[in-house]
């Protein structure tokens, strides 16, 4: 297995056209699983094609094991790819599909047979070896496509939205299988998806992309807990983070966010913050699971009464929607405490978990230090244990 590093990679399809990839910088270690995630048109598939060598980069370098491969043709890069459409050779049976790359690399027939058998066993497709791709179901084609990539034992595996053509149930099954496979084989992998759940569950590292730029690169937990900007915060997480536009106030040197539900008001103390913050329009971000029912015993966390407008029971949780500052806000509550529509609830927030974003640029405010007060962090455990 190998390390992969992208240094200042740029891609443009011609002068005058906007750049498809802009200064992409990232590095993953040997055996790591990198996710490229973003909405369609963000450049993630282009980036993958550049790594594979199917498209040439316009600037920068792609390094595998510290050697620049950006000038090499695809066949010399020793990279295998699983395509979204699987791209199985329609006139060949499964065995020949898997063996095609091995034959071209002039392996002996005995070695090819052995390798095909190994891969077929690994993916449990031994009984399908004689069939043509047209006779296979979507899930089976998916396995064969993975088998073709595995058989070559390349330095890096690329997956281009491999699960997006499968039905929901199969997608979850294959997701777990891909993860199991990676844990067992420890292969360096780059995986493109637009599905944030795949990004969170599969990746060691996640690069969130938009408009050809990497918005944030980090572990799934970093991306989830510490998003760099509004886009990352809204893209990762389901149901998505709530965004409440408001203007901060300053009282006795402390920043306050004022929330109004129509039934009550509450002030969230947000620490001292940087100067001038109170004059700006900001967006307050809070995840649905970080809003809880106010407990009976007082724990010092600010709370607010609000009227329930819609409830959506999902089974493990019930999503409850209320209105704060004229914005619809989703709260994720335990089903046993789920209220009825029209009922009035007391909700509480932990100011330490609240994020602030610049309303104009979408950038996180005060990221990387602790501008916000750490009031109530000790009480979180108690509340999350509900």
């Amino acid at each position, binding site marked *: 297995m190998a390390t992969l590093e992208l240094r200042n990679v740029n891609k443009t399809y011609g002068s005058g056209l906007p750049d498809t990839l802009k200064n992409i910088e990232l590095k993953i270690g040997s055996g790591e699983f990198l996710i490229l995630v973003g909405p369609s048109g963000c450049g993630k598939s282009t980036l993958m094609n550049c790594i594979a060598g*199917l498209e040439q980069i316009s600037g920068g370098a792609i390094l595998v094991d510290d050697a620049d491969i950006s000038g090499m043709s695809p*066949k010399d890069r020793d990279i*295998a*790819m699983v395509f979204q459409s699987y791209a199985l050779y329609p006139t060949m049976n499964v065995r020949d599909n898997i063996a*095609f790359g091995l034959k071209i690399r002039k392996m002996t027939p005995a070695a090819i047979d052995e390798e095909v058998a190994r891969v077929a066993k690994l993916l449990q497709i031994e009984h399908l070896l004689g069939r043509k791709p047209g006779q296979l179901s979507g899930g089976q084609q998916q396995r064969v496509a993975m088998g073709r990539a595995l058989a070559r034992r390349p330095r890096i595996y690329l997956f281009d939205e491999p699960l997006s053509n499968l039905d929901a149930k199969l997608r979850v099954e294959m997701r777990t299988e891909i993860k199991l496979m990676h844990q067992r084989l420890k292969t360096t992998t780059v995986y493109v998806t637009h599905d944030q759940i795949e990004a969170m569950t599969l990746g060691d590292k996640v690069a969130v992309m938009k408009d050809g730029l990497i918005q944030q690169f980090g572990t799934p937990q970093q991306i989830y807990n510490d998003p760099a900007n509004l886009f990352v915060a809204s893209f990762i997480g389901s149901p998505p983070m709530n965004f409440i536009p408001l203007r901060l106030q300053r009282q006795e040197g402390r920043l306050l966010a004022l929330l109004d539900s129509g039934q009550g008001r509450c002030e969230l103390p947000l620490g001292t913050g940087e100067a001038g913050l109170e004059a700006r329009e900001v967006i307050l971000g809070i995840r649905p699971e970080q809003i809880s029912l106010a407990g009976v015993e007082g724990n010092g966390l600010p709370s607010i009464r609000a009227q329930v407008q819609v409830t959506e029971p999902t089974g493990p949780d019930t999503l409850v929607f209320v209105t704060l500052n004229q914005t619809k806000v989703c709260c994720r509550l335990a089903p046993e405490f789920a209220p009825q529509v029209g009922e009035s609830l007391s909700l509480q927030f932990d100011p330490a978990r609240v994020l602030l974003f610049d309303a104009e640029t979408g950038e996180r405010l005060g990221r990387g230090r602790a501008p916000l007060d750490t009031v109530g962090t000790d009480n979180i455990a108690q509340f999350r244990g509900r």
Partner: protein
Amino acid sequence: MSSSLAARRPSLSRLAVYATLIAACLVYLVPLIVMLLTSFKSPDDIRTGNLLSWPEVITGIGWVKAWDAVGGYFWNSVKITVPAVLISTLVGALNGYVLSMWRFRGSQLFFGLLLFGCFLPFQTVLLPASFTLGKLGLASTTTGLVLVHIVYGLAFTTLFFRNYYTSVPQALVQAARLDGAGFFTIFGRILLPMSIPIIMVCLIWQFTQIWNDFLFGVVFASGDAQPITVALNNLVNTSTGAKEYNVDMAAAMIAGLPTLLVYVLAGKYFLRGLTAGAVKG
């Protein structure tokens, strides 16, 4: 209930459809029937009977005489048609492969210009072609005629293959490139095996065009190297002696049979190929 009744007793409109179809078939078949009947009649029989009358004595003399007259030219046509069809199909496939899978700067323009060739009337290329053949030292040779047919056919064969390959996912070629396959390996191992329907379309089209060609044959071939279409014309247009319609008809049948045979053998591929790509599987 009503549908099962309708299935048992064809309605009036259904009968009208069948009647129209049968009438159309007859219109097409009558000339063939007349030719076949006449070719097996004796000259006396032809003079006394009418076009559709059954031969009084069935005789093969017309066919024997016709084969004597045009048989040699039949083989000329084979020698012209087979290489011209095969080469133009193969080169057209390669062209189509490049124009769909390995697009280069200006490839769309190139394809557009090539399409022009489909609309050029034969007559317009006669002089430039004969000039070129003269320069190449191929004037009045079978090779020269084959070359003209290949070049003229390329516009069509390229169009067929290019459009067929446009419906083949690009990912197949990309996967093969990552598997280490080169330009010709991908063409030979991945794309050609998928191309049977369009190869059949191309073969039938080119065979029909080249076998039935008269103009290029009469201009670019001379004497004993002429194709059967030219020989047939010479035979039928002889002004000396009595007209032997049975021989003319038999010779025309001999000239037309190979095309007919190709359609019968490969016709199902022809239809399949023409509709391929219309519905994605």
